């Protein structure tokens, strides 16, 4: 792998950038692999990377029906935090956050993880109760988290309207300083490049459209490029997980919904942290390019269209203007949607299935970007050992039968 550095960049400049190597190969599929990852989003690529790096399993293919990182990885608002309520979730997301903290160096690719802090605003007494509960839990779980009052919030974000005559005044917030945002594309590319360098085949334009199962054991997948064999298959297909599961005769406790986001035109730096409000319902940060990146709510209906309804956008901008009246004249440049796989308890599924050798990593819904390295790390372990990593155990599909849900609804503020 060609190493990236400032020095290397200068050297390449002298040779007119004519000597850069491919970030990844474009290999022809082999007949069979030790393991197949279905889905070349951040989670799938991270899984492949850690399989190779931590478990020495390099005869691996990642099958991506479109382009690498083109699913939700390409369309999320990039918020990374770990201040989840329940122990099981907090442990998983904190594991991930720790990996984020060294990820650029680990991958030799700057994923621009910016620990600028995340505020989750509270606007009602019940909001504040929920915030306190979560922050107390975070603290005892070793996660940096604080409760702030309105005055402290104002000091961190002076442009936020904290006046008491708003429809829903800001009463306070939870604050996680280590949280922040990252460059979503670079995350996918960084994992892809590093996985490729260890021999993983990244197969784009390769859609899985069937699963071959013999005697309850997976033996490979059917694709638009033919059959590819493997006795271990990990599906990391986010919004399309139900579709892939059906190919193996499985039903999942998931619904795929449109989730939208939008960006403003690029502005000079004006907002230095991430601000999220569940109650008023909008969340916002400013990218390093200058655009305000704004997340909208989920649309109520199922949808695979990567687009949602206009009122959702309208409501989101009402919320943003309510919180930041000075943004009224800032303009919305582009809106888009992703397909999020929501679970009844707003927690993911990292699980074995009734088919031997077939695993699913899905259900991250509206908030899995932050989990990308952690999810890949834990899922790689699971695939390598054939059973769930301790951090993954609580996230088995079986919880929907036994009733042991991990209900992060509401408790974690906005779900992103």
């Amino acid at each position: 792998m060609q190493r990236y550095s400032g020095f290397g960049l200068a050297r390449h400049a002298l040779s007119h950038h004519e000597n850069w190597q491919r970030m990844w190969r474009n290999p022809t599929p082999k007949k069979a692999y030790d393991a197949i990852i279905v889905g070349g989003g951040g989670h799938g690529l991270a899984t492949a990377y850690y399989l190779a790096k931590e478990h020495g399993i390099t005869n691996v293919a990642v099958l991506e029906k479109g382009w690498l990182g083109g699913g939700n990885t390409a369309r999320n608002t990039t918020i990374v935090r770990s201040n989840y309520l329940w122990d099981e979730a907090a442990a998983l997301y904190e594991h991930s956050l720790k990996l984020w903290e060294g990820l650029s160096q680990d991958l030799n690719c700057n994923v621009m993880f910016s620990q600028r802090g995340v505020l989750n605003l509270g606007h009602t007494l019940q909001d504040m109760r929920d915030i306190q509960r979560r922050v107390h839990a975070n603290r005892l779980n070793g996660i940096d988290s604080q409760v702030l009052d309105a005055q402290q919030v104002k000091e961190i974000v002076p442009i936020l309207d904290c006046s008491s005559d708003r429809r829903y005044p800001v009463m306070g917030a939870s604050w996680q300083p280590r949280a922040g945002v990252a460059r979503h594309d670079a995350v996918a590319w960084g994992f892809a490049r590093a996985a490729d360098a260890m021999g993983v085949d990244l197969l784009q334009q390769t859609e899985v459209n069937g699963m071959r199962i013999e005697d309850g054991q997976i033996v490979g997948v059917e694709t638009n490029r033919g059959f590819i064999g493997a006795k271990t298959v990990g599906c990391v297909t986010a919004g399309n997980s139900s579709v892939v599961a059906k190919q193996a005769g499985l039903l999942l406790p998931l619904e795929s919904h449109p989730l939208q986001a939008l960006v403003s035109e690029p502005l000079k730096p004006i907002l230095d942290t991430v601000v999220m409000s569940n109650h008023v319902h909008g969340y916002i940060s400013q990218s390093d390019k200058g655009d305000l990146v704004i997340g909208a709510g989920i649309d109520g209906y199922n949808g695979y269209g990567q687009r949602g309804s206009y009122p959702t956008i309208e409501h989101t901008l009402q919320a943003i203007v309510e919180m930041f009246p000075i943004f009224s004249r800032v303009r919305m440049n582009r809106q888009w949607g992703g397909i999020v796989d929501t679970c009844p308890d707003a927690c993911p599924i990292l699980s074995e299935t009734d088919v031997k050798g077939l695993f699913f990593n899905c259900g991250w819904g509206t908030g899995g970007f932050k989990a990308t390295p952690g999810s890949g790390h834990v899922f790689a372990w699971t695939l390598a050992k054939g059973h769930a990593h301790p951090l993954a155990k609580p996230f088995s599909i079986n919880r929907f039968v036994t009733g042991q849900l991990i209900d992060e609804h509401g408790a974690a503020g906005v779900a992103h």
Partner: protein
Amino acid sequence: MFLIYCPYCGEEREESEFHAKGQAHLARPADPDNSSDEEWGHYLFFRENPRGIHHELWVHAAGCRKFFNVTRHTVSYEILETYPIGEQPRVTANQMEKPA
């Protein structure tokens, strides 16, 4: 931004008047007390979630307050029919797979 034909009001109305209520034709097990944990778990949580033709339940919340079913394509978002509770869809995925 859907325009949904309410079979009770007899006209198309804005999506904002409705609430989407998930998969249609979900039958509660007839004898819950004697259903298995698997059956009950499936009834509660497991869903078809199809990419394509989907039969779903909506309610005309700001209008006539009636629930009804919608057959909708989850990619094109085209609404192919709406029909009252208790009726079966005329447009189904199997049908759509056959060449017209």
